[in-house]
């Protein structure tokens, strides 16, 4: 059986309703090990794209494959970690400790109508450690900053050991230092845990240094000067004839030039 190269493969995707289309004939791919970002204007269809990728919406036409499997056939989403938009805010008033919140995400591992064991608590501890929240294990989200809450939501999905991580605008509403910290953690996860990352964001300036692939979903095209260094695929959400691909080299923020770092590898290969 040939090894699957793409973590995400979208082909001829169209989505909308009888009176309005939101995405038309969109095609792109995200390779395994990529740190990819979807950028675009408000209302360009970024979050819709995420929902389609997760099978929460059904396309009118086209196919979506995640790790080689068609999304509508996937029953087990445990290998796809999803951090929704404003998830940090939505958890802010929930009265549970960070440990309890992360532990709840291990539903599949624990099994229905069973209690969490030592093994599950250890996975939880590691996920909190990976996101720099070890000392906040017994703290409730109301006692955390916006950036810490966002990392807590990341810890939840990391605990499940995902192969693909989908984040919908994780940097919204948190300060610049917290954004840097979050992106740095994502970069480390991308390298050390070999997790493919696909992130929807508005933050062009911040993501430039971290991603090796940027998908631009917009009605008005970004000029090349505006685009971050990385592989950029312009996708017009409605008029597919504007679709084209332009390649940049990624600049890794921590140029460790290892085989595992997608950004370094991309740079070494001359952006091919």
């Amino acid at each position: 059986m040939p090894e699957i190269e793409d973590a995400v493969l979208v082909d001829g995707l169209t989505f909308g309703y009888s009176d309005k289309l939101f995405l038309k004939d969109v095609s792109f791919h995200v390779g395994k090990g990529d740190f990819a970002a979807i950028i675009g204007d408000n209302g360009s269809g970024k979050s819709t794209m995420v929902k389609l990728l997760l099978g929460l919406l059904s396309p009118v036409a086209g196919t979506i494959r995640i790790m080689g499997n068609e999304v509508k056939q996937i029953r087990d989403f445990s290998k796809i970690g999803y951090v929704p938009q404003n998830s940090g805010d939505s958890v802010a008033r929930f009265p549970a400790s960070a440990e309890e919140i992360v532990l709840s995400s291990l539903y599949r591992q624990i099994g229905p109508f069973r209690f969490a064991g030592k093994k599950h608590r250890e996975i939880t501890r590691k996920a909190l450690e990976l996101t720099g929240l070890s000392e906040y294990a017994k703290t409730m989200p109301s006692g955390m900053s916006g950036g810490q809450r966002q990392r807590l939501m990341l810890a939840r999905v990391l605990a499940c050991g995902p192969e693909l991580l989908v984040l919908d605008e994780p940097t919204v509403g948190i300060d610049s230092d917290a954004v840097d910290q979050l992106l740095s953690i994502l970069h480390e996860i991308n390298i050390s845990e070999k997790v493919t990352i696909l992130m929807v964001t508005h933050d062009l300036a911040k993501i430039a240094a971290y991603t090796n692939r940027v998908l631009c979903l917009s009605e008005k095209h970004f000029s090349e000067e505006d685009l971050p260094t990385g592989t950029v695929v312009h996708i017009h959400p409605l008029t597919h004839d504007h679709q084209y691909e332009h390649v940049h080299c990624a600049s890794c923020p921590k140029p460790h030039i290892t085989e595992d770092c997608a950004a370094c590898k991309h740079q070494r290969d001359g952006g091919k």
Partner: protein
Amino acid sequence: MAAIFQYEYMQKAFIVGILLSVIIACLGTVVVHKRLSLIGSALSHSSLAGVAVGLLFGFSPILGAVGACLIASFFIEGIRKKLPAFSELAVAITLSIGIGLAGVLSGFVKNASSFNSFLFGSIVAISSFELYLAVGLSAAVLLIFLLMYKELFYVSFDEQAAALSGVPVRLINFIFTVLTAVTVSVASRTVGALVISSLLVVPVAAAMQVARSYKTTILWAILFAFLSTVIGLFISFYVGLKPGGTISLLSAGFFFLAVAMKMTSGKIVALRQKGALQ
């Protein structure tokens, strides 16, 4: 033994009151965190409509209350599913229908006192059947609540993520709805329909002021509900107040006490930090 426990009706009142306070606090924790705080009011008022139907057509008012509560709760769940952004509206609509029906139907009930006993409850006039019913119900609710603890936590936290993780969200919501409806119906006979909604929410609101985790929120809520019930029964016996109302007012008192405790501890922490800085 204290004089209060020499009376059989007070022994029954304590047993039923304590058992109901424990299970109502457990269910209330999920209700509040699912942001359906008013569901208790909607269900208890709908149960009154069922009571009236039962009294009118000559069958058990408790059965009528259970039926009306189930219909009301599935109606709320149905609207919640169709219009997720308007779940609070679903509760308000059900509440209005429940009150309306109860009001209209109660006009046809000949024995007004039996209908009124469901309004404020009659915890000191519990029959042996009602005692066994409360014991059986409490055991069932506690067992199911413990078994579904993880699932209920996840569904309250994030229904969509829970579904993606394989939690049978529809089944869990269905079981929880039935448990809440049956509990509200049985409790309306004892603590009263108008009091049940406050017992479902206020001890949890008080617990949220002092708890540091989900588990301790449940434990604090149980403690507040337990204390409200026990102290309420004592006061009502010795002072001659209505038990349902006394329990409800005491739970509100515990809420304000918990808020005061939180504010005081916050000030102490701030003062300590100030001292440490100096």
